[in-house]
């Protein structure tokens, strides 16, 4: 079966972002960009399905600027077979991304679509669910285990009180949680080989999708800073402060 994986180019998770002085957004100039950590897990899961003989082809897709080709090449170096970039310079909402992915799903007809549960920039946690709604497929969100058997996939999901397992008919949508797997590193020979793998570039217009949005970001501000705390010398002093100064115990 064919597996489609969606990846996003985001600010590297170790970068402490700064809000722009004019409150129009966060400053992304000269900041290290990487593949969203949850997307790495999604790529790894697809590659493992291929290694197990469950998947025959892994197609990786990204929606974003020309530079997102770097993240697609990374996914190819990790074991994906070919890549699709839907080029868009704008910052798209999750719904617009889900509509573009729906168009790619219609074109590619994968049996399984794997996405990360959320992107660490917008922290939306929407795209996978929205794609599932648009395609009408079942959804296995926050997956910590994925098992394909026949025309079904059993997904163990991380929920607030513990874990839940659901069975979905294929085709289906899965979004990854942190504990699904440990992503591998790309080896140098594979990085070289990935440069020769096919990468197709499309546009929203070519896919016939409107990316108009009902949401508008008015401003972006830095969160209120916490006032500096103090260091106490002993546990006794700590307890005294908590009782008498902060009055929390």
């Amino acid at each position, binding site marked *: 079966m064919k597996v489609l994986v969606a990846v996003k180019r985001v600010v590297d998770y170790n970068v402490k972002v700064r809000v722009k002085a004019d409150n129009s957004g966060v400053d992304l100039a000269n900041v290290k960009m990487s593949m969203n950590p949850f997307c790495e897990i999604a790529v790894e899961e697809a590659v493992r399905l291929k290694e197990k003989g469950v998947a025959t082809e892994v197609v990786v897709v990204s929606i974003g600027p020309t530079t997102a080709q770097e993240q697609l090449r990374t996914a190819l170096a990790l074991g994906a077979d070919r890549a699709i970039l839907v080029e868009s310079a704008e910052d798209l909402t999750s719904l617009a991304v889900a509509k573009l992915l729906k168009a790619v799903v219609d074109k590619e007809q994968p049996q399984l679509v794997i996405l990360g549960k959320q992107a660490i920039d917008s922290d939306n946690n929407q795209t996978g669910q929205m794609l599932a709604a648009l395609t009408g497929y079942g959804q296995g969100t926050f997956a910590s285990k994925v098992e394909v058997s026949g025309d079904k996939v059993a997904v163990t999901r991380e929920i607030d009180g513990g874990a839940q397992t659901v069975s979905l008919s294929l085709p289906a949508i899965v979004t990854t949680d942190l504990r699904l797997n440990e992503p591998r590193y790309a080896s140098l020979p594979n990085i070289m080989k990935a440069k020769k793998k096919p990468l197709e570039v499309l546009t929203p217009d070519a896919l016939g999708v409107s990316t108009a949005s009902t*949401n508008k970001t008015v401003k972006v501000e830095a969160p209120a800073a916490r006032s500096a705390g103090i260091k106490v010398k*002993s546990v006794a002093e700590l307890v005294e402060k908590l009782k008498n100064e902060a009055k929390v115990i």
Partner: protein
Amino acid sequence: MTILVIAEHDGKVLAPATLNTVAAAAKIGGDINVLVAGQSIGAVAEAAAKIAGVAKVLVADNAAYAHQLPENVAPLVAALGQDYSHILAAATSNGKNILPRVAAQLDVDQISEIISVVSAATFTRPIYAGNAIATVQSTAPVKVITVRATGFDPVAAEGGSAAVEAVAAVHDAGTSSFVGEELAKSDRPELTAAKVVVSGGRGMQNGDNFKHLYALADKLGAAVGASRAAVDAGFVPNDMQVGQTGKIVAPQLYIAVGISGAIQHLAGMKDSKVIVAINKDEEAPIFQVADYGLVADLFEAVPELEKLV
């Protein structure tokens, strides 16, 4: 304006996060209706009808909605929700699972995890692991929103007397089925609702050492949390994880023990009223957000703290 709030429940008990979500709805203003979807949910519907400020409770009691599978519940919410100005749900694993599916069916963008209401169409929400706060305006005819519980003080669970109305519509997509679940058992307060939270990180060294934190927590009536490092190392189950991708807490007192304070962890707890850090590395970033920092070996400090409180 009429607002539809999706009740958060496990089939038997109405979850406290519902009260915070109703509080957010009250800030928007307008009639508040609550939808309870599930199977054999009489007790939950009764509890929902008692919430202060709720005008009407809609009850969709059907086998198709058992375990609230999003494939079946989302079409129900989307069909009912067309007549409302806002659809709200708590940003729990359930709310996050269902609501984006509803938004896409209504062809509108969703606003995730709002922490405040500026006006009926404008909301604020944290982005980049809480390192920036975005103000977002929606022009959607139906505004679909998940609510971060820690951003809103809960409304009273008692005092209301809403009319209860059954919803007959049944949506069964037939694309998914529930297989089973494994819930972690705990006698301590729920992490997201606790007044005091004691969390351990990699510094705990192993799962057995968490007993020191449990002893302290029991004395304080606290819930016990963990950093991702402690969860990934297998010390504790992952539903204890506090952070950007785990639970978001904002207790009166948060005690971070053996936690370095990576931005992903801070995203889940930095709105706590008082933060205490116990760490032997005085350069640890956790000390930059801690109100009270103690540089000490946790294996000496925690038992001593337990004795003194």
